[in-house]
């Protein structure tokens, strides 16, 4: 056994040390306080202009995808450098969903690297490495957890596909140029086999993006396709292989969702708040129930840290992580909701105040978290579904038999 804490940079060779220093100086100049605070309010990256500008600046240096070859817009650095960039950015308390995932080319980069033709690599990888925004087009009104039942149709016509249908919860689609679409190319095949991955241009004629407002006041979108032409060369991977490709992409997204530093930051803030705040003449931290709550939450944060470290260790040892990978995602999302809920109780009436209020405490973080954290237990794969994956893969329980039930329409 060895639970030694890894100290950032301790394993660097001389070249890496030099790189870390140069990078650190650049980050200090380019990470603005506005950028940091914009991620503190825990809204979605895609909607944070500062984050997108920063990604582009990072892309110009080749550091958004540091390990990619220069011809694809990377910095051509050896393995290990993406970790250095991620570490240095995290150190500066800059985080937002999907952002660090961007360092490996987000969801699309690794897939195009693996499944793309040489022409597709030349076309798309440099765009991704420069910080081009892609919106994800998976979910549809009738395809959520059962994603494979998606209906959006891509029908062949000459060298093109003609797209018809609708995507939902396509966050960032109003800012992004490209749509990473799972579409049905063959309606005759069983549902998992007739799906392909296609990149669509969101500015093409026939595409309509409309606003959906989340409970957290954040924007997501519906995207409608009405006879939209997309060249077949925009299909990534073989026709009908979209499902397998999407599954590996979702796994990458879940891994990213699991690397979330906020639970610790929020609990530390709440402990500080309880020490400094008096109610009825006594510090909150002397209330036995608040002491119990905060001790439990800080234990939970520690468990989350251990799940993450164990997963990294399993990856290092090439072990099967299919059952253990969702632990962090499930635990973090539910812990974040507990922190927000119990944090509100600790803060009392002040907990309700939004960041903009002059009376807001902890910059409104808890109020914001109370709403934004709701999405985390079903976004990127429903925890309810993931628990079944854990039990069937990790403990060998049988899967639920697939039974169709007649539904009254």
């Amino acid at each position, binding site marked *: 056994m060895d639970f030694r804490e890894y100290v950032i940079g301790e394993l660097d060779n001389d070249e890496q040390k030099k790189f870390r220093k140069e990078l650190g100086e650049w980050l200090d100049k380019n990470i603005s306080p506005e950028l940091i605070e914009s991620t503190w309010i825990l809204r979605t990256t895609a909607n944070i202009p500062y984050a997108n500008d920063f990604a582009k600046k990072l892309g110009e240096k080749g550091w958004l995808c540091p390990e990619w070859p220069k011809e694809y817009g990377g910095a051509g650095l050896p393995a290990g450098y993406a970790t250095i960039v991620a570490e240095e950015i995290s150190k500066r308390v800059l985080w937002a969903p999907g952002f660090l995932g961007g360092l490996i080319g987000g969801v699309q980069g690794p897939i195009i690297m693996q499944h793309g033709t040489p022409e597709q690599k030349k076309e798309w990888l440099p765009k991704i490495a420069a910080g081009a925004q892609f919106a994800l087009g998976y979910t549809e009104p009738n395809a959520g957890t059962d994603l494979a039942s998606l209906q959006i149709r891509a029908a062949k016509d000459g060298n093109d596909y003609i797209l018809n249908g609708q995507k939902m919860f396509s966050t960032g689609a109003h800012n992004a140029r490209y749509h990473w679409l799972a579409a049905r190319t063959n309606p005759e095949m069983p549902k998992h086999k007739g799906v392909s991955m296609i990149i669509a241009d969101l500015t093409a004629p026939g595409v309509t993006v409309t606003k959906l407002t989340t409970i957290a006041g954040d924007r997501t979108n519906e995207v409608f396709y009405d006879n939209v032409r997309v060249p077949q060369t925009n299909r990534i991977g073989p026709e009908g292989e979209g499902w397998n490709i999407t599954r590996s992409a979702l796994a990458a997204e879940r891994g990213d969702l699991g690397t979330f530093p906020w639970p610790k930051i929020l609990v530390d803030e709440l402990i500080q708040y309880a020490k400094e705040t008096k109610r009825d003449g006594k510090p909150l931290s002397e209330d036995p129930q608040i002491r119990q709550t905060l001790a439990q939450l800080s234990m939970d944060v*520690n468990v989350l840290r251990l799940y993450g*470290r164990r997963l990294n260790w399993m990856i290092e040892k090439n072990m099967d992580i299919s059952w253990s990978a969702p632990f962090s995602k499930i635990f973090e999302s539910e812990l974040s909701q507990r922190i927000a809920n119990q944090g509100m109780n600790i803060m009392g009436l002040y907990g309700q105040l939004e960041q903009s209020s002059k009376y807001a405490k902890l910059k409104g973080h808890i109020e914001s978290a109370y709403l934004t954290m709701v999405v985390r237990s079903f976004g990127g794969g429903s925890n309810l579904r993931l628990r079944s994956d854990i*039990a069937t893969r990790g403990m060998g*329980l049988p899967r639920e038999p697939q039974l169709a039930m007649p539904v009254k329409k």
Partner: protein
Amino acid sequence: MDFDYNDEQKMLKQGAREFFEKECPKSLVKQMMEDEKGNPPELWKKMAQLGWLGLIYPEKYGGGDGNMIDLIALEEEMGRACLPGPFFSTVLLSGLFILHNGSEEQKKELLPRIANGQLILTLALTEQSDSYEASAITVEAKAEKDDYVIDGTKLFVPDAQIADYIICIARTKKGTKPEDGLTAFLVDRKSPGITVTLLKTLAGDKQCEVVFSKVKVAKKNIIGKPDQAWSPLQETLQQVKIAQCAEMVGGAQRALELAADHAKKRVQFDRPIGSFPVIHHLIANAMMDVDACKFLTYEAAWKYSEGLPCAKEIAMAKAWTGEAYQRTAAMGHQVLGGIGYTMDGEMHLYFRRAKSGELTLGDGKFHREELAKLLGM
């Protein structure tokens, strides 16, 4: 970073599993719940021969020079086996207290005989006030020439019914703080004035009321410094808690496996009940819970064995593991249904021990409060 045991520890663990499967079947465990002594002598002797009773002691005291991680590997298997007997009271509570605080003479005299299975010891700490705080200790020891005379009642003393010696924590002086003025006495259980009464308990483990009535103890039988037993005792208890957590980890892991195995085999509505998502969820939650117990315990044990500060880690491990073991066994009962509710089953052994382990040496609430203090609140 390494979340696993090394090869030697894995061998020790595997060997212990096979040994207990053969030598400590659940029928024996159930028999010992009813037995007044609660310690099958043959099993104790064999464990001594295997070197397990002295595993954690230095070689010069007849031990195996093992570290904390070796010990928790063994403890996990003891928990899985629901091992009855005085390992906790003798080897851990008493032996470790003597190892850390005894005089050279006491260590040479007592530890080799614990390791070879000749001596059973226990530690009498708690009283009727049901508290692990120093202020709870009211049993008094008064100096009288070369002796002390102990008066008072200790409660929930493990294995006192078979102990050769009882280490009694008694108040020798009224200090300014309740932690001051406490002394540890090594008392021969057969001394005049000691009455031991067995208590019937949930887990069928052996806990006793021990009444001291004018019990004489020679001054030379004090372990450690007079009037200053509290803080060294707390240090020993920290180490014991890590081992105790590992025992609970082993039990929780087994309870989870029993539930999952049953879910795979039991058919209702023409399908194994393990194919229902509601069962998936119960099992998945327990898997996450048990893994958390493991990692919290492993990290505490690793830090302890490296000589690093680990008070927070121990508080977290004890708080989490006690409660999670109970949740896991309670879940197991629901998956097993009626068949798990009979004495023929095994789940109840884990269900009982989980609660007992949770309560012993401080429950979740107690350790969350410890943690709150350590977090500066």
